[in-house]
């Protein structure tokens, strides 16, 4: 539940940043359309982030088509690592097999770098 709330809050922050933060708007503005999913491996929790020419929208749920996905082993780990905003924690999670990338891995990094501009 906390994981789901975190994703929702993140989506709101990114929507706000796309309108109010020129650096972020510029960062995402060059991408025509990319869909990033953040979800748990069991598909129980998830949210789709849609980037389209400088705008951000999102949909709840883990069953939408996507270009790239950050897949967490479980919601608790996803919450803990994402809330830490730490690259090192994320890398450790990957090394422990608790975070995997699906699809276009580059966009997962692109998404994370964008989030860093905002938070």
């Amino acid at each position, binding site marked *: 539940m906390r994981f789901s709330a975190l994703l929702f809050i993140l989506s709101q922050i990114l929507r706000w940043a796309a309108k109010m933060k020129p650096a972020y708007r510029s960062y995402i503005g060059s991408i025509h359309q990319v869909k990033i999913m953040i979800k748990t491996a069991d598909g129980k929790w998830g949210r789709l982030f849609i980037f389209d020419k400088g705008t951000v929208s999102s949909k709840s749920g883990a069953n939408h088509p996507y270009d790239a996905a950050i897949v967490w082993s479980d919601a608790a780990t996803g919450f803990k690592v994402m809330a830490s905003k730490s*690259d090192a924690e994320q890398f450790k999670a990957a090394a422990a097999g608790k975070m995997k990338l699906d699809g*276009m*891995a*580059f966009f997962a990094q692109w998404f994370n770098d964008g989030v860093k501009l905002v938070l």
Partner: protein
Amino acid sequence: MAKINGGHLVGKYLKEVENVEIVFGISGGHIEAVLDGFTEYKIRTIDVRHEQAAAMMAHAWSIYTGKPGVCFLTAGPGFANGLTGIANAYLDNAPLVVLCGRHPLRDDLKGALQEINQMDIVHPITKWAATCYDTKRIPEYLSIAFRYAVEGRPGPVFLELPPDILGVKIEESLAPMPKRTYRKYTVHPDDADLKAAADIINNAKQPLFLGGSGVRFSGNSEALGKFIEKSGVPFMLMNYGRGELPDNHPNSVMDMGNIGLMFGITQTDVLIAAGVRFNWLLQSGNIIPPNVKVVRIDIDPHEIDRNRIADAGLVGDVGSVLEQLTPFINKNDHSAWANTLKSAGRSLLDYELRIRETATDPIHPVRLVAQIQKVTGDDTVYVTDGGDTNYFGLAFSTKQKGGVIAAAAGLFGCLGTGIPFGMAAKLARPDKKVVVLNGDGSFGFNAMEFDTMVRHNIPIVVVINNDCAWGMIKHSQELSIGKDRLQCSELGVRHYEKVVEGLGGHGEFVTKDEEIIPALERAFASGKPACVNVMTDPTVTSPATPLFYQSLKME
């Protein structure tokens, strides 16, 4: 008294002084005496169908053999056709020796056939360029050319030879062959710098060694192996350095791929960059976080602080610097850190690892590479050429030196290099299988070289990853301007294998996963130059595409 003409002097010098076994080019009237010199001195000639292929083959020959590669171009259009290959060698620092004809000096400014100022054109893309005006000085000029090509940071050289000096006979005694000197220059970094670098490396908790083409040009894998073994540092080898130590070396983290590198480099505390430039492929150094300490080793002092001020900089040939550095290095074990990198790499590449083992319809390029590897193993020379295709092909695993070269992924991004590189690889290592993974777009640039392969019996297998498009451009356009506004980026279903059959090679057309391996086996069994044209999923975009696209993004 024995007489010799200028063309024969060229052949004599190449054979007797430089021990040149093979040269690449196309015939032409202006260089007829040189061609006869090759005959006289029994130098094998590979005559290609476009001069760019000749320059690229000679460039590749230098990579696969460690000796300078020689190409010959005739005047005017032959020269112009070779420019792409020369420029590519220039940006890759390859020791390419170009011998080029020109219009007669006698006819200067008279509107001679193929009269053009070649020197002004070629100067910016060569390390050294000159015109020889005197027959008896031909050996001297050649000697200078070869020295410039290989000494210090290697690079292409260009020697213009007018017919006025090539066709003229002189007393042989007037043009003695210079003695070839094989000095092993060793630039010794200051001891304080060596110790500073060693201190950083010895105190590192999570170091990473990144080696590039300079590792290959150094030709000292023994020194590299000793450094890695003693320091325990995990390593990745890129560009021409790939395979200097085998991919399955215990300290190798090659299998974490470029994505793993992108994430992993943020977690290192020390990066040892040897013979590798921080160019656009490494986001001009921006890929390295500010808190990471950087030790750079490069033969060119200008590279040490380029795009990132190094914490320690060691100037010199990579191998000799490592020989000097290793005594200062403490014996260490970073295997836990290496395993962390590998594990993280597996998670980050989870999708690709699953696709490798999954038959899909249409065929995924990642799966295609995996199936090729099953047939050819890790004692094969792999070359990849394309945009997205380069990325997919880098997943090949090798124990061959220069065993996986993304020929089109150099600084010049020169599509079309794959086939010439593959041909040169087969000539240099005839007992090894050679596979070129070509995009369908890049295949077109040098496809006619299948004729060269047939004439000269160069049996390589070219596998086309055919997505019916200039894939990287198409997918970039999809990201930037939208799928409904694609421009000049789509090709079509084309039976390239039939073109190859028409030229005397072997052709295969593949649309299903289960057809890949049998088609490859037939291709190798044919003993002919072969083309396996594989239709792959046109929607697949490699991670290299957004990297490429982002690199051209303007604020």
